């Protein structure tokens, strides 16, 4: 099956700083999503981005499908951005299932 690696595993920032989270995957995909898991465990959809670039406020994401990676950019970070960020990919014959990485734990300090 598809392998998903996220880096870095942990990231500590001061409020206002920018960051880049990376997701590498081992095979072609037809589905890639970025999620933020809040302290209560809820997975919040950030981006559906199997290819291309999208922006939503202070967050943006880019997926280069041919090179099998995706990047999530967080600008002017706030304490409320803290939590775990997951990349999930799906594709091939098992289009229904998604494979998650182990996440990046982001801590934003005031």
């Amino acid at each position, binding site marked *: 099956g598809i392998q998903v690696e996220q880096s870095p595993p942990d990231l500590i920032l001061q409020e206002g700083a920018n960051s880049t989270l990376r997701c590498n995957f081992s095979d072609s995909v037809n589905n890639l999503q970025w999620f933020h898991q809040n302290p209560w465990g809820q997975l919040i959809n950030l981006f559906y981005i199997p290819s291309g670039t999208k922006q939503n406020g202070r967050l943006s994401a880019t997926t280069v499908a041919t090179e099998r990676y995706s990047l999530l950019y967080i600008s002017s970070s706030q304490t409320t951005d803290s939590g775990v960020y997951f990349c999930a990919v799906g594709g091939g014959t098992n289009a*229904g299932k998604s494979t*998650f990485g*182990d996440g990046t734990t982001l801590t934003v300090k005031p």
Partner: protein
Amino acid sequence: GAGVSQTPSNKVTEKGKYVELRCDPISGHTALYWYRQSLGQGPEFLIYFQGTGAADDSGLPNDRFFAVRPEGSVSTLKIQRTERGDSAVYLCASSLTPGTRRYNEQFFGPGTRLTVL
């Protein structure tokens, strides 16, 4: 409903008991997924339904785990003879019908935290 709902939010049981976890998907979503998340890890796929049928159950760890979706809406994940290693958060997600734009964009419920003592 507005989002995916799961009940109960927490379930504590004893080793060897039977448990049922329920998922109510977003109205109009024909695809439904179950995942399991252990502490410090990403969710792991268990099973995927398209309508009433299980399209992919390759993630079910063993035959103690079973899931149904008899009317193509609500789904129940059933775990027999629970073991301490089954303790985890069980997450449910739903998505639109294949062929629809962004059909495989998944939306998750809040999860059921299962603790097996």
